[in-house]
């Protein structure tokens, strides 16, 4: 049975809300109604929304931990190799592999690698830079970075049907429901 015949050229339907609580309640109801391909856009971070809609946490911390160890290993190996193999320098008969003095550069490289991974990883996992996205086609969406909250149910969703989904979003207390062109 094919009901989604009316979604050509349509990315989805966007509902506008006035408050943080409003969009949280609407998301809970939309998930309960069986929608899964949707996204909330907010001017402030609302950590709960990710748990409600996506139910999945990012792998970023694991990437950062891995790169932290890589940074430490890079720093230590570099210093050990430079000081004992590539350029051994006898200073008053002291040992060449003076590991305590290698601690600080290793420590700094641990932090450098992790911080760059956290920042670049966040940007890359978010798919940025991304110059075009359908949500920007809606004029009201420019308020999503100031004071309005938007919930978009995407046309790809299995339960999506333009009429019914529109009515459903209106019923959630949306201040407006807009078509999002692809």
């Amino acid at each position, binding site marked *: 049975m094919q009901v989604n015949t009316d979604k050509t050229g349509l990315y989805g339907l966007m509902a506008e809300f006035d408050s943080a609580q409003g969009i949280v309640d609407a998301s809970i109801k939309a998930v309960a109604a069986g929608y899964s391909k949707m996204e909330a*856009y907010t001017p402030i971070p609302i*950590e709960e929304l990710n*748990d409600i809609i*996506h*139910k999945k946490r990012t792998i970023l911390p694991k990437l950062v931990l891995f790169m932290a160890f890589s940074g430490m290993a890079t720093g230590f190996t570099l210093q050990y190799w430079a000081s004992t193999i590539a350029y051994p320098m006898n200073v008053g008969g002291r040992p060449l592999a003076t590991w305590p003095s290698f601690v*600080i550069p290793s420590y700094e490289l641990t*932090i450098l690698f992790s911080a760059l991974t956290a920042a670049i990883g966040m940007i890359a996992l978010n798919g940025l830079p991304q110059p075009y996205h359908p949500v920007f086609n809606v004029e009201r969406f420019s308020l999503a970075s*100031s004071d309005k909250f938007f919930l978009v149910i995407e046309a790809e969703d299995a339960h999506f049907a333009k009429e019914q989904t529109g009515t459903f979003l209106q019923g959630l207390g949306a201040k407006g429901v807009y078509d999002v062109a692809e």
Partner: protein
Amino acid sequence: MAQHVHAQSSAATLDNPVLGAGQDYETITEAVAQIPLSKRYSFGWVVGLLIGLAGLSALQLAIGYLLLKGIYIWGNNIPVGWAFDIINFVWWIGIGHAGTLISAILLLFKQQWRMSISRFAEAMTIFAVACAALFPLLHTGRPWLAAYWLFPYPNTMGLWPQFRSPLIWDVFAVSTYATVSVVFWIVGLIPDLATMRDRATSNVKRMVFGTLALGWRGSARHWHRYEVASLILAGLSTPLVLSVHSVVSFDFAVSVIPGWHATIFPPYFVAGAIYSGFGMVLTLAIPIRSAYRLEHLITMRHIDNMAKVMLATGLIVAYGYGMEAFFGWYSANPYERFMLWNRMTGPYGWAYWLLIFINAVLIHVLWFKSVRQNLKLIFVLSLIVNLAMWLERFVIIVTSLHRDFVPSSWDMYSPTRWDFMMFFGTIGLFVTLFFLFMRFVPMISMFEVRTLLPEAKVHVPHGHGGHGAGH
């Protein structure tokens, strides 16, 4: 940063709030966003920028002449081989530390009052580190030749840096600190740049802010990764900032010079850095909040808290002076004892007693709320604190060096006009960068301040939102 939404104490219920009354999402956004978007350039801003540019020209002249002639144009000479170049380096780096403390350490401690001052405090950090880095770099004489012994890269001479030297540790610590500070600052800017993109009316501004915002949409997934990344960056910056000034202090403490060879140096330097840094944040915040009418975002609560941090760190610094003197006496080492006696009663004794007066005596006025609430007094005090912290580095560096182990090599140090020109030149660089920042970048983190509003807090019923909700 889920704590934004779950803050235990609502900002609005405190008698001295972190946010003025009657604010909503739009008033906060407008107050900050209208500054970079405005088409007018205020008279005060133009004058400030011109003063900065005049200083910057002096800096260019000082550097140009230095590269032409060599570092003999400075006043350093044996036995005082380190002087203005390292005093100013430590002074500027120290100032930077307050920015990282506010943006990282106070984030981990869930201090809401950090939100409206973190952006410009971090900008201060970046500009201060840029000023600081100039000094040791130019002290190498020929910076373009210094690369092979400062940075580990394969070169045709087959040389590698001496990794047992604190100076190399310093290169790693300061360059990591500069990089991470810039990255943290840019990440913090992304959502606000999207706000600027969406509010810009001119095409040029929309293009510039749009490009810099990278296409940020503020989706739930974006914010989730963003908050995780911010928390990780804060967690990384915290040990980083503590390590940077500790490593700076190793430049001294690892040597065998009496007056430098002290185990108290790392914590004492870190406290001094935060102390002078908060002095500089106050020096900047007090004029900014009145010039741009941001009193409802940078409230008296912020001024009060910053003054308290200054008092606490100032007392740690004063304790450091006491311990330094005690170690010198208790060591029973004649060189240590002589250094101490010379520092107190020798030719630079005036500098020592002036800094003791400011950092150990005058600072006690901050115990009084009436002083902490008096903007003019606090402003003057913040300038005095920065002067005292500059004197502290002067005393540590010059008095320890100018009386060598052998009396025949004793000498006095006096800076030349080029020393002063370069120092005031870096102040010009700092002023220039800061004025450009104030006018073209949103100087308060709008999205973070919005989370301080009561309506930003949400309630999620149990059983919704997976495992992550509600913590």
